[in-house]
């Protein structure tokens, strides 16, 4: 039916647009669906290339225009340079109140050169909308959850990375200028693309004093020579990244764009730059992060979150800092482990790790604020690993050279060429281009997007799902009735993480009875032995439940008189609203 409608629409559109759109999508007769991928999507997107912030916005608009009942596009704020931070809010808007459903937040690209997250975000929004109504799992997800997807939370530097002079590793920072060398000037000595290949590669110079030689079997490679090596060929010295001494202070590239690290800026156990290199002025002094924090504070329904970085093939959880070890207690670690280990299975080559002990100990990271400050279970994925080159776990630096030669036919490397440098004289410039090494190569990108999305959907599936069951009424004499109900949480994630419970970050869940005069209420701790805890309140109809644990339940009881049509409503910030 849907296909038929689509074809009709397409025909009408073709008549209006003079068959232009026929080049956009295939005729249904011309295609055959590959399992697990939208067979003939309304919105055509190539997931074998990357998109600038303008490109991402155009894709977001296409998806939103195609599925107005499933996606709303909004901006959560502006970047330093004034770009909008676009968010796609994806849910079935025809069912329930969108912002009261358990919410899952997704962002990418906090580090400027770590770009894949944006494509994963777009892929997720695209997949969810194209598969809604086609696939039961996706349909259920959008019926009772909402996804808040911000493909890039760092559009300025994404644009800079793609369009300006950069290496695979630059910029990591956002674009707010900083005086890195404390000489009173800002960003006055950055990289220079001397050979005009669009990337910052390396500089080398022939020198009898150098400690490198060219690999005789592969002229792209440099080999370090040791004190015992007998060198019979030309020695070279390496002169660092491509650039000149722009400010004449005798140093090259010492005050580049930035430098601050947007992922050292978050308001949980934040530390200043002298303790945590990369911190900016104060927590959330980076405007893009501030916009995210304001959104999250205004959306207490967010119960899970994912941030995409690159690279290394890691699924990371907090704590980020060794000093924060006690923040993560056993109950929460169990939830993290269940989801994280599943991720390691879904994304071959990726490892499930803990930031502070497996990576580095770091303050002020995004995932720590989400968990420590808001009680939201959050993962950071480091997208792409050299595993992908030949689908094996061998970590060998030759792999990327082989891959470049054998699978992408030398597209990733700029061969060494002579250049007359104003300070160094005759040098050679060459090396891997900026789109190689950290960015997933084109033909692998769709798989990367899909597997990471699948992990995120698994996480989102396990956000709390509440139901009311076993409602019983028992007369206890003198016109009084005891009403008991069971509130179930069918999924892994509790309505309140233990960090949340420890500090009452989020309000309790309310279980409210209407349609009777409620005299008293209690939580039933043990029904068999009649152990209960009475609620001390002037409003006993509204029971405050501190938590509804994962794959578990809470029993509540009211003592009422003058009973009419009773209705029970569960109102949980992270678990949504259900009534019976």
């Amino acid at each position, binding site marked *: 039916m849907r296909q038929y409608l689509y074809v009709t629409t397409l025909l009408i559109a073709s008549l209006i647009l003079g068959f232009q759109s026929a080049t956009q999508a295939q005729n249904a007769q011309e295609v055959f669906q590959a399992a697990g991928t939208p067979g003939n999507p309304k919105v055509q997107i190539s997931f074998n290339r990357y998109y600038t912030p303008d490109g991402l916005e155009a894709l977001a608009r296409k998806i939103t225009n195609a599925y107005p009942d499933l996606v709303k596009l909004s901006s959560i704020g502006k970047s330093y340079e004034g770009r909008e931070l676009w968010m796609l809010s994806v849910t079935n808007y025809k069912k329930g109140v969108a912002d009261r459903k358990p919410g899952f937040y997704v962002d990418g690209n906090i580090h400027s050169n770590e770009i894949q997250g944006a494509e994963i975000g777009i892929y997720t929004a695209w997949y969810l909308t194209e598969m809604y109504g086609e696939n039961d799992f996706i349909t259920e997800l959008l019926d009772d959850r909402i996804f808040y997807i911000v493909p890039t939370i760092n559009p300025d530097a994404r644009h800079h990375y793609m369009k300006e002079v950069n290496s695979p590793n630059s910029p990591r920072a956002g674009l707010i200028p*900083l*005086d890195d*060398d*404390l*000489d*009173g000037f800002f960003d006055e000595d950055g990289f220079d693309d001397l050979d005009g290949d669009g990337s910052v590669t390396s500089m080398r110079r022939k020198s009898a004093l150098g400690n490198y030689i060219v690999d005789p079997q592969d002229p792209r490679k440099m080999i370090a020579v040791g004190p015992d090596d007998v060198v019979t060929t030309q020695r070279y010295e390496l002169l660092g990244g491509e650039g000149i001494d722009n400010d*004449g*202070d*005798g140093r090259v590239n010492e005050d580049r764009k930035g430098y601050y690290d947007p992922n050292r800026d978050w*308001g*949980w156990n*934040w*530390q*200043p*730059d*002298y*303790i945590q290199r990369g911190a900016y*002025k*104060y*927590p*959330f*002094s980076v405007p893009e992060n501030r916009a995210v*924090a304001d959104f999250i*504070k205004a959306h207490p329904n967010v119960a899970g979150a994912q941030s995409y970085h690159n690279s290394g093939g890691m699924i990371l959880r907090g704590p980020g800092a060794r*000093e924060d070890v006690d923040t993560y207690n056993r109950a929460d670690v169990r939830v993290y482990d269940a989801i994280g280990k599943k991720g390691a299975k879904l994304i071959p080559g990726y490892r499930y790790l803990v930031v502070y002990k497996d990576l580095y100990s770091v303050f002020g990271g995004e995932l720590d*604020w989400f968990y*420590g*400050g808001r009680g939201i279970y959050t993962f950071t994925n480091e997208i792409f690993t050299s595993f992908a080159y030949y689908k094996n776990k061998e970590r060998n630096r030759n792999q990327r050279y082989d891959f470049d030669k054998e699978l992408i036919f030398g597209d990733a490397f700029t061969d060494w060429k002579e250049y007359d440098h104003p300070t160094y004289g005759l040098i050679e410039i060459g090396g891997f281009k900026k789109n190689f090494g950290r960015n997933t190569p084109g033909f692998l990108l769709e798989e990367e997007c899909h597997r990471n999305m699948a992990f995120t959907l698994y996480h989102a599936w396990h956000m709390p799902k509440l139901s009311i069951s076993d409602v019983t009424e028992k007369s206890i004499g003198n016109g009084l009735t005891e009403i008991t109900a069971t509130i179930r949480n069918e999924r892994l994630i509790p309505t309140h993480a233990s960090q949340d419970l420890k*500090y*009452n*970050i989020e*309000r*309790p869940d*309310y279980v409210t009875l209407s349609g009777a005069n409620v005299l008293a209420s209690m939580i039933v701790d043990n029904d068999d032995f009649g152990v209960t805890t009475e609620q*001390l*309140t*002037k*409003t006993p109809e509204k029971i*405050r439940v501190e938590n509804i644990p994962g794959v578990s339940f809470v029993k509540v009881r009211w003592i009422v008189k003058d009973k009419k049509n009773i209705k029970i409503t569960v109102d949980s910030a992270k678990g949504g609203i259900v009534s019976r």
Partner: protein
Amino acid sequence: MIKKTSYLWIATACYMLLSIAAYAQNDYPDNSQLRQRLQKLASQSSNASLQSLAKTEGNNDIWALTLSEGNADEKPAIAVFGGVAGHHLLGIDLAVRFAEDIVANNKELLKTTTFYVFPNMSPDASAQYFSQLKYNRQANASKTDDDRDGAVNEDPFEDLNGDGVITIMRIEDATGEYISHPSDARILIKADKQKGQKGKYKVISEGIDNDGDYQWNEDGPGGINFNKNMSFKFPYFESGAGEHPISEIENRALLDFLYTKWNLYAIVSFGPQNNLSVPLKHNPAGTSKRVITSILKDDAKINQMISDQYNEATGFKGGKKNTGSGGDFFQWAYFHFGRLSLSTPGWWIPEMKIPKEDSVTVPNKDKNPEVNFLRWAEKEQLTNYFTEWTKVDHPDFPNKTVEVGGIHPYVMINPPYNLVEDISNKNNAFIYQLAAMQQNIRIVNVETKATDKLLTRITAEIYNDGLLPTHTQMGDRSRWLRKIKVAIETGNDQVILSGKKIELIDRIDGDQSMTVSWLIKGKGTVKITAGAAHTGNDEITVKLNN
């Protein structure tokens, strides 16, 4: 006719305004009086410029006054703060009086030091002092769920005895923990079982349990404290702290301003914290971990020196140390901003001694500050500082004896207004002394020596003429204080054969120097500059030896 009438009206209005302005103040300024004083200062002096950094949630201005002769941002600067705590009205007045005094009596200083004065960082809270219901409010007007139960402002104070101030309630109850103080029965203290004492009263702040949760007044109007919302040791999820550091408009606006002031080297706060009458001590355990929690060794020495100056300049005695609390401004300014951070309440109640001939008064053996306050207040013949215990009918305790009474809010940290002028003069004298110790980079002992007709060696000393170091030890670690930049400008026919064109020096201690030298080939003159905005700059032109 109509016109004439309106002129008359305007004239009358002007006269009334003038007479208000001319009338001597007899109480602390409220927000509109503060604004008038600041605007008057800015309009009457070319050395003062006033800006509002932001409007708070309660729609009050956060004022920043810049006092300077010449280019303000190029000279070393001290920032002076009032209203760090919203119930400390004295601090507000001391800050604005300082600004008024320097413009009127010490303008010369503005040639060498810029002052940024922020008279009230807690205008939403301080306004409570002037309202119908007075209580020690420190929180701004942000709407917060103080007890994190999902309801906002559902259980405020109530003025049960109708005296316009919130004091405390004592409820006679065997389970209570409090008894009367032995030297003044009006004051309640915790019973000490070790001394054979049993509690007699429950003590709760004045009000009723509006939401029936058996907690009293736990979630009233507001808000977040300016002095609890900063990032050093931020007290997460405590009432009044905010959801994360620097969440509030005023905190953020201030920091955005301060981070543009590269010339700022010291911050003087009039607030609860006190490292002026008693200096901070270096604690090695607090500096051995990644997160530093103790003042660094060299900085502790500077603090000691400045503290001595404070006690000498003010003549104050008996000030209690207050090394700070989580999220406060004073510690932030040092630990996270790297500046010399100095704080004083500006005034405290002197310790009352019992005259030898007095055999009636019971000695205040445990130096209870409330007992001491009452004795001082009596001697100073204050009025309206204590509400005698009187019975009230309390809905939450129907069968119990409930009395409302106690020391009024504000009175223990804000002296009667007639004392403020003297207090202000003494604190101002200290700030002037601090400025006199200011670091000051100069280029001295410049020598040139010809090694050949065309070769000149220049040596010079970069000297810190002040008593303070150019950078606190903490500031030396911070990226938010610039290095001392020594640069030489050479002409077209001159070549630097040795020595750096630009040299960056981390830090020069008070009354210390560093030697720099260059070997230059060429004729004519070269220019040498040294300094940074917060250290002062110097420049000289040197004739090459030929």
